[in-house]
């Protein structure tokens, strides 16, 4: 190790030697950085799951533009929009097809008494082309009354039922005192609002959600002509439809707007953002504390090095070397423990909490940055190393 670092730096790795000489301090610092990493990873993991589950339902759709009520917030937290806008939209050049989308949350009580809630999409079975290609053939079959497609990753559903679905069978369950038959499946997974999803025809949907009317869907999905840009057509729609009532967004825009809404308007998003900030702060403070104590403890030695002709760059190098050692040594256990906790969270909550490489790299770069920043602040203490005081 020492030989390798010596070759790398062209000098003895003083920072490393200093840190490893004082084991207690090293362990405390590494534990601190690991803990800060853990905090940040957990917050980001849950935030990521929140984001994933917010936008996961979009994957079921195959549309270019989505019309919604200005009163709505996100895809699943929407107001109602009058169906007349569907016909007005179809009159706008470039719009070639339109269909209403109904969304509701259906609570079920299973045979064993446990309850499950399903985020339900009601779609026109005759317009299966508005659903993702993999799903479209089975959506066409939903014209048969009281049949649904069920999310096979639904939390809390009996495993044998989901298994029989996956192998091409069907299974029947009760909701609102009526019977539904799952005839096919897709994979979305549970989120914070529901345990899973189902897709039905608009007819079946309206039967189960008695208070909803066919004239007031949640959204209207539009397709634009081949080769046309959804952005341009959306501009035309904005000009044609009353802006105070109708929100016109391309699906990409709607997705992005949902994410930013969850991150900035919802208390959960804000709390998790604050958690990330706290984690970073904890890391900064711990690393600063360790590095500045370390500088203070070695002032005499540093003053000696100054007398020997070592310049400021050398001392900055030592402190940054220490910062990088702490970042690397703290990140690795932080990552490993976080991955363990992610797996635990998935097992307990079924939330889509997963470690992705981007997040790991981002947190590592952030850790390096935070440690370097702490190191930079700690180097202010170096000025106190005065070789004139040595004799």
């Amino acid at each position, binding site marked *: 190790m020492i030989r390798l670092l*010596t070759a790398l730096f062209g000098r*003895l790795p003083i920072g490393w030697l200093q840190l490893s*000489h004082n084991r207690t301090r090293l362990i405390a610092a590494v534990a601190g950085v690991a803990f800060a990493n853990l905090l940040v990873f957990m917050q980001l993991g849950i935030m990521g799951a929140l984001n994933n589950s917010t936008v996961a339902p979009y994957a079921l759709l195959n549309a270019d533009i989505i019309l919604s009520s200005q009163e709505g917030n996100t895809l699943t937290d929407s107001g109602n929009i009058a169906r007349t806008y569907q016909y007005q939209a179809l009159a706008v050049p470039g719009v070639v097809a339109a269909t209403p989308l109904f969304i509701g949350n259906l609570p079920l009580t299973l045979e064993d008494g446990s309850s499950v809630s399903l985020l339900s999409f009601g779609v026109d079975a005759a317009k299966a082309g508005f659903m993702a290609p993999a799903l479209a053939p089975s959506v066409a079959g939903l014209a048969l009354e009281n049949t649904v497609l069920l999310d096979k990753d639904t939390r809390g559903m009996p495993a044998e039922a989901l298994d029989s679905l996956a192998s091409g069978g069907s299974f029947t369950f009760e909701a609102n005192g009526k019977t539904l038959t799952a005839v096919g499946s897709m994979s979305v997974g549970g989120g914070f609002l529901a345990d899973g999803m189902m897709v039905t025809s608009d007819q079946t949907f309206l039967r189960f959600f008695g208070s909803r009317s066919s004239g007031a869907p949640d959204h209207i999905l539009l397709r634009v002509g081949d080769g046309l840009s959804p952005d341009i057509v959306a501009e035309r729609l904005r000009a044609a439809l009353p802006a105070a009532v109708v929100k016109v967004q391309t699906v990409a825009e709607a997705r992005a707007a949902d994410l930013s809404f969850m991150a900035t308007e919802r208390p959960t998003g804000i709390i998790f953002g604050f958690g990330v900030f706290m984690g970073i702060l904890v890391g900064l403070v711990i690393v600063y504390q360790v590095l500045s104590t370390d500088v203070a403890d070695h002032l005499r030695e540093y003053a000696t090095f100054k007398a020997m002709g070592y310049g400021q760059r050398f001392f900055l190098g030592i402190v940054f070397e220490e910062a990088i050692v702490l970042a690397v040594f703290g990140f690795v256990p932080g990552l490993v423990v976080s991955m363990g906790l992610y797996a635990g969270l998935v097992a307990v909550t079924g939330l889509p909490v997963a470690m992705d490489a981007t997040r790991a790299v981002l947190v590592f770069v952030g850790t390096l940055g935070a440690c370097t920043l702490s190191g930079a602040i700690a180097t202010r203490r170096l000025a106190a190393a005065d070789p004139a005081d040595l004799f």
Partner: protein
Amino acid sequence: MAGADFPIAVQGLNHYFGTGEARKQAIFDLNLSIKRGTLTILMGPSGSGKTTVLTLMGCLREVQEGQVRLLGHALHGATEAQLVQLRRRLGFIFQAHNLHESLTAMQNVLMGLQVHGPGNAAKQQGAARHMLGLLGLADRLDYLPANLSGGQKQRVAVARALVSNPEVVFADEPTAALDKDSGRVVVEMLKALGQSRGVTTVMVTHDNRIMELADRIITLEEGRIVNDTNP
């Protein structure tokens, strides 16, 4: 050139400590030149200004008034970068050893070499080993300072100062922590280096056993030279 024959030349040097009411002059109009390759001893009672003069000549303390020329460079008004370059041509032996606690004897000595750049690692190791050997520490290369005696630590510090072939060595009571024999070994080494390589040494000491080795003895009292002899 004067710089070559007299690596240290001091003219009209005054030095003050403190500010305002507490301002107190420690060095008064000091003039002296020290010849290359000689061993000069500074002596005098406690508080007479020996350390102050040493740190001023060794560019460890900023020159306030007067002129100090070291190895041909005027220290007054020199930039920090110039001072850093100049310090690399010097060797310092402090009263306290000031070894780095987390470096072994060998590594501490290597620090004296690496200040000149990465260089050839094997060559540096060889030089460090040789120097430690000369000071009787061949079997202590991989010891941390905590596991060395006071005298051994001081000898490591001497090795660190001398390993990079300094042109001028400044030492402040270097033999205080050494027993009689190793103290003499160190001073004899410095004297030999003066004769063979022209190394100039300025040393503060109260140690009478060493006086006989000196080429020149300067006595300070209250910041002034009161005696200057060539025994």
